[in-house]
């Protein structure tokens, strides 16, 4: 089963939208309630006015209660154009004087003596709003309370309430949309640090195990803390592993030296051609093994130094010369022209001299082992704000499609004989630590060239 991908953004938006919907529903309900009340209030006044007009037209004539229904009362109610009107005039004896006899509100009309009574009920199966108004008659010949029950259907009220509600709902809707839009923006803004963190993590060198140091809101701190904790542990592990490799390599050295000593003592003179060939192979393998062991140690050291040694301004020309001298063996083929060319002016970079020397030494060593035929030239020069160490040889070089592979750690283009070993990986590692790169220049008119490219040291940076 594929799990649905969840997005923090959409989760938040969804929840806020739900809250807004709930709020909007609540507000709409409130708006409806108030609109109803307002509509009732408005139309109740008409109802009351009409009823009062009728009571005002009650007359007592010769002991008989009479009432003239003023057209104006009905006209007043007619302001609610579509609503039907029912009324009943009740005399003091409780008999219906005129109007709808069956208009029974179920309310004791005498309650209206203290003031008008309003109620909502049903009459003839339609909802009606009823007002009951009383009038005290105090004619000498006739006294008592008369009542007018005035009822009106509620279409206009509902229409008004509906209109008010729908307008309110439009406003609520617009506000909700604005709020949602604002929320979306706010969430986007709030999530920027997450994106930034993601970008920072993405942009990191996969080998960079230092703590993430980004400006984070408090909420993300635990997360970043966990990452850093994890990275710390991973770094510890890696360090441990490197130390293990270093230790192992170191442990191997002594027996390896001894082995090479034993091999050296074998007198090839006494051997037949076949055995001599085998011995030659053994010598090669031993020296290859020795070289790889040294590279492992060198690599471990470079890594260790990259996060433990403070960089300071150093003369790259000087470092390169030392590396050159220690790397090119005295026993090098005399037919090879091995040259070193320093820059006319000092080339200072900010870095660790030991690591840099190791990097350069490894590049030169690689050229000696795999490249050089007649010519090996090491040059130090500056180009704009870059410091370059170029190691050029007239050998076959490395094809461009393998360039990225040879600088990767523990990756070599070929297994077995002629392996590049860790040389370029070490150089690349050092270059990255110095905010630089290891580049290659294809063998063309000039020789195949490996370039260690590091920013020049600038005062104050």
């Amino acid at each position, binding site marked *: 089963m594929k799990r649905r991908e969840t997005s923090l953004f959409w989760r938040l938006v969804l929840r806020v939208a739900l809250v807004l919907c709930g709020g909007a529903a609540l507000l709409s309900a409130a708006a409806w309630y108030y609109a109803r009340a307002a509509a009732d209030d408005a139309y109740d006044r008409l109802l009351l006015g009409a009823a009062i007009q009728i009571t005002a037209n009650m007359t007592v004539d010769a002991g008989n209660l009479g009432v*003239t*229904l003023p057209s104006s*009362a009905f006209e007043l109610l007619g302001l609610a154009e579509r609503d039907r009107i029912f009324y009943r005039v009740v005399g003091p004896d409780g008999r219906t004087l005129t109007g709808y006899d069956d208009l029974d509100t179920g309310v004791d009309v005498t309650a209206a003596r203290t003031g008008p009574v309003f109620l909502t009920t049903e009459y003839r199966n339609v909802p009606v709003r009823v007002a009951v108004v009383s009038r005290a008659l105090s004619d000498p010949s006739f006294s008592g309370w008369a009542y007018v029950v005035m009822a009106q259907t509620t279409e206009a009220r509902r229409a008004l309430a509906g209109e008010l509600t729908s307008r309110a709902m439009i406003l609520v809707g617009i506000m909700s949309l604005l709020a949602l839009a604002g929320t979306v923006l706010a969430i986007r803004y709030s999530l920027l640090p997450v994106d930034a963190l993601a970008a920072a993590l993405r942009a990191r060198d996969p080998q960079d195990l230092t703590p993430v140091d980004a400006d984070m809101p408090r909420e993300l701190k635990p997360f970043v803390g966990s990452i850093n904790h994890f990275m710390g542990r991973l770094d510890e592990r890696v360090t441990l592993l490197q130390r293990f490799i270093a230790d192992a390599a170191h442990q191997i050295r002594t027996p390896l030296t001894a082995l090479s000593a034993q091999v050296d003592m074998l007198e090839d003179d006494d051997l037949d051609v076949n055995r001599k060939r085998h011995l030659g192979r053994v010598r090669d393998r031993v020296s290859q093994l020795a070289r790889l062991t040294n590279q492992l140690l060198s690599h471990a050291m470079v890594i260790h130094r990259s996060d433990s040694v403070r960089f300071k301004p150093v003369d790259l020309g000087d470092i390169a010369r030392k590396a050159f001298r220690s790397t090119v063996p005295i026993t090098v083929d005399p037919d090879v022209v091995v040259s070193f060319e320093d820059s006319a002016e000092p080339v200072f970079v900010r870095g660790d001299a030991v690591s840099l020397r190791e990097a350069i030494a490894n590049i030169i060593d690689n050229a000696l082992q795999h490249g050089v035929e007649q010519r090996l030239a090491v040059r130090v020069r500056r180009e704009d704000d870059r410091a370059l160490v170029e190691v050029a040889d007239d050998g076959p070089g490395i094809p461009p499609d393998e360039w990225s592979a040879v600088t990767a750690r523990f990756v070599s283009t070929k297994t077995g004989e002629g392996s590049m070993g860790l040389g370029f990986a070490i150089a690349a590692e050092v270059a990255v630590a110095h905010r630089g790169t290891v580049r290659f220049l294809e063998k063309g008119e000039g020789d195949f060239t490996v370039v260690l490219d590091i920013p020049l040291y600038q005062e104050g940076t």
Partner: protein
Amino acid sequence: MSMWRQFGPLALGAILGLASPAGAVEGTRAFFPALEAERGRLVINGATDIEAMEPLIRDFQETARDVAIDYTDYVTNDLYRDADIACRLQQLFGDLLLSSSVDQLVKLANDGCALAHVSPATRGVPAWANWRDEVFGFTFEPSVMVYHKDFVPPEDVPHTHGELTDLLRFKPDYYRGRIGTYDLRQSGIGYLLAFLDAQQASTTYGRLLESLSRAQAVLRCCNNAVLSELDSGNVYIGYNILGSYAYAAARRNDKLRIVLPRDYTLILSRGALIPVGAKRRDLAGRFLDYLLSERGQDMARREAFFFSRGGALPAEVDGPAKLVESGIGRPIRIGPALLAAQDRLQRSRFIEDWTKLIVDTPVRLRPN
């Protein structure tokens, strides 16, 4: 209330009956068979003379050739009573009710006895002639005075309600028994017009009533009854006659002349209503739409009711050129205000007062 009735001269068939328990008192009945094979029958109960409705019905059938129409003419009060009873008992009482007594139709609608009808045609009806999309006014009929040219000298011709009062006051003997008007006890429209007269100008109305009383006005159930008295010369002046009937009569008898009062002229819009029990409310709606349509309105102006909302007054009618715009013509608004006229206490007292004055009082003065 008494059950007087009098039938129009052009009645096609009449059955006299007492109110059955169902309340179906039938008046003059006319049947218009479908022009083609009948596919539907529309039952119309109207308080509108059949000769006025006939051209409209026939023209309608041109547009709906498969519809047969069963038309029964009622007196307004009977129509209302039967419709009211049918509504209460949830019985069938036609598919469409037509009545000049719109207050009664408003009352029916108020009592929940009407079906709403909304169509493109109803949207063109002015607000004063439409209540709740249930009661529609489809005519434009001023309440006029009619006089017989041979018996009323030009100087006597009243142009306002006041002038009529004065005429009766100054020449009581000449006009005694020669003024015709509705009998409020029988005619719903008579009552409505009188009630509205009383509201428009209560003083003028009181004086007019007094004058009518003194002049021993001839009381008839219906427009046509008054008009036939005028036609025969028994009555010289008819008061509160609906313009449509008056004009039809004047077309038949050129001695009859029509005056629209210049102080105010009540304008009635005859009402139509689809009762809740209507079996063919679709046909009723179609007919109603026809009545409200341009074609129907045009036909009405030419053949049935002669006056129209927008059009000029018909020829030879004495009245202000622009009836409504001048403020003289006062359309009776179809709406809840008419319920006041329909209040039973109000009505009975009004008619009682009227009867006292017009019917009872003059008895001792009446020579015959």
